[in-house]
């Protein structure tokens, strides 16, 4: 008897958070490691939450995984950076609309000693060719994240067939951006990073930016509400409120004020119809 009542109490305690959740206004946003690791969400969410009373719960994953989280109906909003994949998501009917939010760019970082001799270059294709020719260690995310997809596309732009040229020098870590940077630093390898994570990253050690400023290194972020017709559990009103705020003048302004060491990390461009 006693045991049963203890068990009931324990179960009730276990389920308490789930019950409490239902009373609060919350949305779940599947986003990328770059938006979280760079500290952007820490900057913008308190402002949004204070204004609307809607609490935003961010699950940070690679873009591919975040889109899959949306596809399973486990998030209300998906906020990622791989335009082609986002458009596919809309095409599949998992969202009805994709809105551009902001951009920054990718950079190739590598050891300060620059074993490939590419430092200072503005030509990412040539730099990747050199890395491949010299077989200098290169760390790939290898996790279907937005950055990984961008990297794979850049090898193609360089006219290289990754499947044919890859060897021991090409190291897929299958982890987030920060973990990949830690690995590159420890191995003396090059890697492709989004600039925001790079600036916010605290274990730079011997790593430095080698290649930047090529317009092919452009990195666009987009946001989508998961289609409630697919998943009735999607919190339409609150999710849409978050999206509307992100692309509003106020939200865009807040994004543009996020800086680390005087450097702006994300550049709002919700008004750009081609983004």
């Amino acid at each position, binding site marked *: 008897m006693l045991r049963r009542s203890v068990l009931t109490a324990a179960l009730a305690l276990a389920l308490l958070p789930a019950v409490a959740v239902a009373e609060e206004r919350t949305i779940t946003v599947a986003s990328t490691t770059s938006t979280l690791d760079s500290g952007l969400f820490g900057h913008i969410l308190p402002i949004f939450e204070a204004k609307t009373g809607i609490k935003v*719960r961010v*699950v940070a994953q690679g873009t591919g995984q975040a889109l899959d989280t949306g596809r399973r109906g486990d998030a209300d909003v998906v906020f990622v950076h791989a335009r082609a994949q986002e458009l596919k998501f809309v095409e599949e009917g998992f969202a009805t609309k994709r809105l551009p939010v902001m951009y920054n760019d990718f950079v190739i970082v590598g050891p300060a000693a620059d074993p490939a001799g590419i430092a200072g270059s503005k030509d990412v294709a040539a730099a990747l060719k050199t890395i491949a020719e010299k077989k200098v260690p290169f760390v790939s995310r290898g996790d279907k994240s937005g950055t990984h997809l961008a990297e794979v596309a850049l090898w193609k732009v360089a006219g290289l067939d990754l499947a044919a040229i890859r060897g021991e020098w090409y190291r897929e870590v299958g982890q987030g951006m920060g973990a990949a940077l830690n690995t590159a630093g420890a191995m003396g390898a090059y890697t492709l990073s989004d600039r925001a994570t790079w600036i916010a990253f605290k274990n730079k050690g011997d790593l430095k930016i080698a290649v930047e400023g090529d317009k092919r290194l452009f990195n666009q972020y987009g946001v989508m509400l998961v289609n409630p017709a697919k998943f009735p559990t999607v919190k339409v009103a609150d999710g849409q409120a978050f999206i509307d705020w992100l692309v509003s003048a106020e939200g865009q302004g807040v994004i543009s004020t996020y800086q680390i060491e005087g450097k702006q990390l994300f550049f709002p461009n919700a008004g750009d119809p081609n983004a």
Partner: protein
Amino acid sequence: MDGGATLTTMTASLIRAVDPAFLGIVLISLKVTLTAVGCAGLVGFPLGAALALGRFPGRSLLIVVTNAFMGLPPVVAGLAVFLLLSRSGPFGGLGLLFTPGAMMVAQFVLVLPIIVALTRQTIEDLWLEYRDQLTSMGADRLRAIPTLLWDARFSLVTTLLAGLGRASAEVGAILIVGGNIAGFTRTMTTAIALETSKGDLPLALGLGAVLMSLTFAINGLAYAVSRLGARYAG
């Protein structure tokens, strides 16, 4: 970086980290782990004892399975719970994914086999010791379960601690089912994983030290309580 400098940076990072957000992380960790281990104990002790004393077909197989599941990789347990609790999964309607409840379920799954297996061994040994006495008092195997569990209570504390160790140390399962959401499902271990990936290694190391201190404290407390209890029980 030499040892002294590391220690200084670590301490500085910790002081920075000791704010409400940090306390929240500790509380979430404790809530999730203690609930999971508590529930696993409530279910696992009787199950383990029943497995020790019961005689039924397939018992040996069940014992082997339980023992094997002590080695269940957290990431596999996490994935299974994730698929079950996903909105597209069979229990999606509960809306538990990415909540502390999901993390409790995952840790319960991880801890239960340990408690069942260790309890079974303890009770089986005890039964061999007291079988004659208990049967002469007219108790059959099933009726002996509460008596034996009570008699073994101090050994079972260690069983519970083994489960607690498993739960508080793991990151693979709760990262998948909890989503490491700030202020909601971020625990000590997932925070350590996050700070490592942000490259803030001193803070990650500092959080690790706090986690270890907590584990020491809980184990010390459990040891003291069981020693006192054993002395009192004579």
